[in-house]
C-alpha cells in the first residue's frame, strides 16, 4: 500500500458578526478553495459562529520566528511615550 498524502491544509478565519475582525479558529484539509470553505463552514460554523469565512493555504502564510521574538517585539517595550498614560495632565483639564 503506497502512503497516502493528506489533502493540503488551510487555516480558517471566521468573522463572528459584522463589525468584528476575522479570527483564526483552526484548520481544515481540502483539495481546493471551494472545498476548504465548505469544510470550514461545516466544521466551524455549526452553531452560527460566523457570518464570513476566510480560508488561506497554510503553506502560504509567512510567520515570525519565536526565536526572533526578542528582536522583533522587545524594542517596543520601552517606548512608553506612545501610550496616553505617559503624559501628566491636570485633572481640571477635561476631555483630553
Amino acid at each position, binding site marked *: 500500500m503506497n502512503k497516502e*498524502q493528506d489533502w493540503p491544509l488551510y487555516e480558517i478565519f471566521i468573522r463572528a458578526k459584522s463589525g468584528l475582525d476575522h479570527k483564526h479558529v*483552526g*484548520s*481544515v484539509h481540502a483539495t*481546493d478553495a471551494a472545498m476548504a470553505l465548505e469544510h470550514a463552514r461545516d*466544521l466551524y460554523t*455549526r452553531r452560527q459562529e460566523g457570518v464570513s469565512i476566510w480560508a488561506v493555504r*497554510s*503553506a502560504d502564510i509567512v510567520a515570525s520566528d*519565536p526565536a526572533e521574538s526578542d528582536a522583533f517585539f522587545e524594542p517596543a517595550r520601552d517606548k512608553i511615550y506612545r501610550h496616553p498614560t505617559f503624559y501628566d495632565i491636570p485633572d481640571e483639564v477635561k476631555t483630553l
Partner: protein
Amino acid sequence: MYTQGLDSLGKDCLRDETRDGAALESRFQARVDAEEKIEAKDWMPEAYRRTLIRQISQHAHSEVVGMLPEGNWITRAPSLKRKTILIAKVQDEGGHGAYLYSAAETLGVARAELVDQLLAGKAKYSSIFNYPTPTWADVGAIGWLVDGAAIMNQIPLCRCSYGPYARAMVRICKEESFHQRQGYEIMLTLARGTEAQRAMAQAALDRWWWPSLMMFGPTDTDSKHGAQSMRWKIKRFSNDELRQKFVDTTVPQADYLGLGVPDPELAWDEAAQHYRFGPIDWSEFERVLAGHGPCNRERMEARCKAHEEGRWVREAAAAWAAKRSAVAMQAA
C-alpha cells in the same frame, strides 16, 4: 498559525538541545509554571511534544471511533426529534475529532500518519467505544455517563499548557454539555416511561457504569504518565480525583432517575463528603485495552472499510485540484 514550518521545528529542537538543552528546558518549565501558554513554534522538550501528540491523537481517534456506537442508532431513533438530535450529536463527535487532529498537526505530524497508526492498530483510542449499543437506552447512557465522564476529564484540559490543544478543548467542552444533557433527557424519558422502557434504561446503566469509571484511566499508583504530565500542566488532576468527582456528581443524578447504580458497595461517606465505591475490575479494563473487548474488531473494521472505500474519492479530489492548478499555471 497552525502547522507551517514545523518540519524545521524538529531540527531546531535538536540543534538547541545540543547547544543548551538544560537552559532551554528550565526556561520552558518556568514558562509553564507561570501559566504561560506554549504555542506551536515555541521551543519545547521533545518528550513534551511526543506526549502531546500521543494524547491529542488518541483523543482525536476516540472521537472518530466514538461516532460508531451511537451512529448505530441514527437510522432507528424512535422519534424524528431524537433522530435530529442524534445526527447533530454524532456529527459533533466528528467535528471534535477534526479539531483535535488539527491541534495535533500543529506539533508537526500529518493527520494521514495518525490515521494510518489507528488503522494499523498501533494507536489507542478510548476503550469505552468497544462496548456495544444494543438498545436505544445505550444512546442515553452514553450521553449521560460517557460524555459526562469525558467532560470531567476535558474541562481541566481547557487550561492545558499547550495553546492549540487548550483552545480546541474550549470549543469541545462548550459543545459537549449539550451531549450530556440530551443523554440525560433520554434516560429521564425512559425512566418515566413504560415498564419496558424503564427496564431498558436500567440495563443500560448497568452496562455503562463500570466502563465509565474506567474511562478515567488506571489508579494513580498505576498511572504511567501522570506525574510528568502534571508538571507540564498537560494534566491538572489525577485520575482518581476526577473519578471520585464523577461518582459524586453522577450518583445523585441516578437517584433522581430512580435507577440503581450497579455497585453493592456504593455508600455515602458523611465524614469525607464523598461516595465510597467498590473495586474496579481492572482485568476487564486491560482486556478491552488489549483488543479483546466486545466490539474492538467491529470498530476497527468499520474505520478501515470507510477509509479504504473512500480512497478513490480522496484521490479523485486531489487529482482534480492538481489539474486545475496546472491549468491556472498555464493561463498565468
